[in-house]
Structure formats: structure tokens, C-alpha cells
């Protein structure tokens, strides 16, 4: 009797474990089944490299190249803004922060991660857009605005993972360096940082994944024009905002085109995720 209970529960645990596989499969099946046929129909090349996104025209064009480029631009922008600040803040947290301050700042980083994207988006809309319009020109809805916002939004990811990577470096490396007469700063930047490299790279990749997938904050401040931006101040539409702006009403072919956009987004995420896993495994070694 007792044994059968053990068996039943084991079965339940096993089924639970299968749930996430099933969920992932369902996601892949439903997104791909609705998106891939369209891509093939419309022409994979025309879809990915098409420059025109005019779904309401007849005949309509569904080229998402501007959005692919847009996503890449703002993601690079986010990395340029967020990575140096994030990594340096992580260094601050791990090596410069007095412990009484750390007790406050550590939860603050977690808080930063927990603030909903809609709040960030709203904040950026009210604060960054006017600032950028005033000091840099343009209308404020731009690659630059999106990059700064996303740069801030990836900070907590970069900070907390980089910090733990730094803390995982054996202390003896640091003492070894200091004993040779190197300064605190030199010891950190020349010894600790290279030793924590793969952990820090993982944190950056995760941050990039977050940036490329972000939607609701970006839609408010990016301008959303389906064109390849020609300057930092020009508006931009990303893969995610393309979906969120038009999904509500899309029907037929148009809707399939948006789902196909999600397929492409998914592809990006899978790529980023495999790079991440590669570095994570490397770290584990």
C-alpha cells in the first residue's frame, strides 16, 4: 500500500516535470504552425529581407527587415548604455561597497528588477522623451530613447549576475595581486575581472535577451515607424513592438505575418539562449 503511494506520487512528480516540456512544445507548435506557412508562402527571403511593411495596402507588403534592424539597433544601444554601467556597478557592489550600504543596495537592485516594464516605459515617456527632444533634437521618440531605457532595464540583470561572478572568483587571486604591490583597482580590473569573464559575459547575454524581448516599455517611446533608422534620433520599430501594435486588429495574412514576426523573435531568443548556455557551461567547468 505504502509502496503504491510512493509510485503514484512519483508518477505525479514525473508528469509535473513533463509539463514544462509540453508547454514549450505547445508554444513552438502554435507559433510556428501559424507563422511558418506564411513565411514560406510569402517567401522567406522577401519576409526577412523585405524593406516594406505596409499591411494595409493592397497588395500588402510584409518585409520585416526594418524591424530586425530596429531590434538589433536598440539592443546594441541598450548594451552600450547598460553593460559598462552594469558591470562597473557590479564591481562597486562586490569590491567597493561598505557593508552597511550593501545591505540597502542589494535589495535595491532586486527592486529595480521587479519594477514592471510598464512603469519604466511610462517614466521614460514622461522624462526621457522631452529631455531628448530638448537636448538632442528630433521628436524624442527615437533609437536613443529606447536604448537608454533598455540600458536601464537590463541593469539589474547585468549587475546581479556579474556581481555573483565576481564574488565567485577565489579571493587568493586578489591577495596574490595585492601582495605584488598592485593597487585595489588594478587587482580588480587586471585579475578579478578577467577571471570572472565568462560569468560576466553570461550576464550580458541574459541582459541582451531581456532587451530584445522587451515590449511594453519600448512601444511607448520608440516612435514605432517601420523604417530602418538613419540616425540615433530617428524613430524605430522593433520585432516586439511590431507585434504588439498591430496584433490587436490583424486578420488573415496580416495576422500570420505578425506571428511569423514572433517566429523570428523566437529564433533570436533561441540563439541568444544557446550562447548563454554555452558560456554557462564553460563557467561550470
Amino acid at each position, binding site marked *: 500500500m505504502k509502496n503504491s503511494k510512493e509510485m503514484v506520487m512519483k508518477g505525479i512528480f514525473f508528469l509535473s516535470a513533463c509539463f514544462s516540456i509540453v508547454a514549450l512544445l505547445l*508554444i513552438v507548435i502554435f507559433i510556428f504552425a501559424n507563422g511558418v506557412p506564411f513565411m514560406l508562402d510569402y517567401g522567406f527571403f522577401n519576409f526577412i529581407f523585405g524593406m516594406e511593411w505596409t499591411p494595409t495596402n493592397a497588395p500588402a507588403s510584409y518585409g520585416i527587415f526594418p524591424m530586425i534592424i530596429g531590434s538589433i539597433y536598440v539592443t546594441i544601444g541598450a548594451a552600450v548604455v547598460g553593460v559598462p554601467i552594469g558591470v562597473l556597478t557590479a564591481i562597486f557592489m562586490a569590491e567597493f561597497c561598505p557593508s552597511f550600504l550593501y545591505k540597502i*543596495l542589494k535589495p535595491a537592485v532586486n527592486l529595480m528588477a521587479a519594477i514592471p516594464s510598464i512603469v519604466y516605459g511610462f517614466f521614460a515617456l514622461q522624462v526621457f522623451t522631452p529631455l531628448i527632444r530638448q537636448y538632442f533634437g528630433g521628436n524624442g521618440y527615437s533609437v536613443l530613447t529606447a536604448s537608454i531605457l533598455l540600458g536601464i532595464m537590463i541593469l539589474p540583470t547585468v549587475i546581479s549576475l556579474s556581481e555573483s561572478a565576481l564574488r565567485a572568483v577565489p579571493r587568493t587571486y586578489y591577495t596574490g595581486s595585492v601582495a605584488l604591490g598592485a593597487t585595489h583597482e588594478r587587482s580588480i580590473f587586471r585579475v578579478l575581472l578577467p577571471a570572472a569573464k565568462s560569468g560576466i559575459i553570461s550576464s550580458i547575454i541574459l541582459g541582451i535577451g531581456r532587451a530584445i524581448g522587451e515590449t511594453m516599455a519600448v512601444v511607448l517611446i520608440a516612435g514605432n515607424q517601420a523604417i530602418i533608422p538613419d540616425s540615433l534620433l530617428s524613430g524605430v520599430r522593433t520585432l516586439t513592438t511590431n507585434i504588439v501594435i498591430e496584433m490587436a486588429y490583424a486578420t488573415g495574412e496580416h495576422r500570420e505575418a505578425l506571428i511569423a514576426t514572433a517566429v523570428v523573435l523566437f529564433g533570436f531568443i533561441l540563439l541568444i539562449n544557446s550562447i548563454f548556455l554555452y558560456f554557462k557551461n564553460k563557467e561550470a567547468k
Partner: protein
Amino acid sequence: MSAKIIRGFVYLSAAITFGMLGYVIIFILINGVRFLTPDLFAWNSTSQNVSMMPAIITTLYVVGGTLLVTTPIGVFTGFYLVEYANRKNPIVKAVSMATDTLAAVPSIVYGLFGFLFFVTFLSFRLSLIAGILTSVIMSLPLIIRATEEALISTGRPIREASYALGAGKLRTIFTVVLPVAMPGILSGIILATGRVIGETAALLYTLGSASNIPGGLFSSGRTLALHMFVLSNEGFHVDQAYATAVVLLLFVLILNGLSTLVSARLSKGGK
């Protein structure tokens, strides 16, 4: 000399990071608190009062419903991975891979999937149930990971002690391991809660944005984050959007406080 410059950059970055966080919070508070009128908490939301009460209730519904489903599945998955399966088992690898991937899927893709699968394919319409099930999948990886880590960190000795007394696997897991792993699992649950509370894109196409308290599992509603999105996007209610942001922040602050408490307990090592 250059050491000083480097230190300057480090301090500057930290100042930017935490300055920005402070700015976001203070900006929202300053602009929002004064619009927190009793009207905004009226039981019924109308086009006049744009009360966020229904959104608060809906948020609780969605969070509650999601946790109710996701916690057992996530925790049980953790049990299976840590306590039952061989690490080299292909299922374990598949589950790990699926979990990692699910954790990386952007919310908008979840939204799209929920829309295609729950709303359309299963004909749930825009509804509480569609929103909850979508959130379940979205928050599952957080709980699985937290449980796995918590279980692994409980260590061998107390398990051995229990087995050596003739206790079976189930009894060992539920009465010895689980209590010790609880704080870790709890912080996973808190994380999941945070994710659901802050979610917009995934819920927009599954939960919908109806402004009243959902009447049942198959009715639409809107969470606080969605309410804020709708207000900042559609209505004439920027002030109320700020006020909503204040309440949303409050939720997040409370959760964050909770998780700090839990992790403090965690680091004390079960005393």
C-alpha cells in the same frame, strides 16, 4: 593616478544606477501620490472615476490563480529533478533545457501563444482563465529553478538521516527536506508573483482589458499593470496612470521586502 580615475568611474556608475532607481521611484511618487483619491478605490470602475479597485482585485485573482497552479507543478518538477531522476537522464536534460528556454521567452510571445492557444484554439475568449494559464507557463521556470536550487542546497546529511531511520522517499521529502527548502521555494514564489504583477504584454491578449471585476473564470478583466497601460495609452487619465503606478510600486516594494526577509532567514540557515 589612473587608479583614482577608475575608482571614479566605478562610483559614478553606481551613482547612475541607484540614482536612476531613486529617480524612477521619486518621480512616480511625487506625481502619483496626490492623485490617490478615495474615488480611485471605488468598488465599481466607471468612465468617470476610472477606479483601480477592480484592477487590484483582478491582480489578486490572477496572481492567486497562477500560484495555485504553478506552485505545485513547479515544486513537483523540482522534486522529480532533484530527488528522483538521475542527472544523466535525458528527461532531466530536456526539462532543464525547456525550463531555460521558457525563462528566456519574451512576454509578447507568451501573449501571442496564449491568444492562439487558450483564447482562440480552446475558445476560452479573453478571460481570467486564459490569462492565468498563460501566466502559469510564464512563471513556471522561476519556481522550478528556485525549488531545484533550494532542494540541492539542503544537502545530503538530513536525507541520509531520514532514510537511515527507515523513512520512505515521500516522507523524507515532505517532512524533512521540504521544510528546509521552504524559504528558497518561497523566494521563487515571490519572484513569480512579481513577474505576474508586472506583466502586460502576455496578459493583454489573454486576459483582455475589461475594466470590471471578472465575474467568473471565463470573464475578462485587467490587472493593475494592464490598467496602467490602458490609462497611459488610451484614456484621458494620465494622473490616474501615475496613481496606478504608485500602487503598482507599492505592491512591488512589499514583495521585495518579503523576499529580503525570506532570504535573510535563508542565510541564517534554518535557525
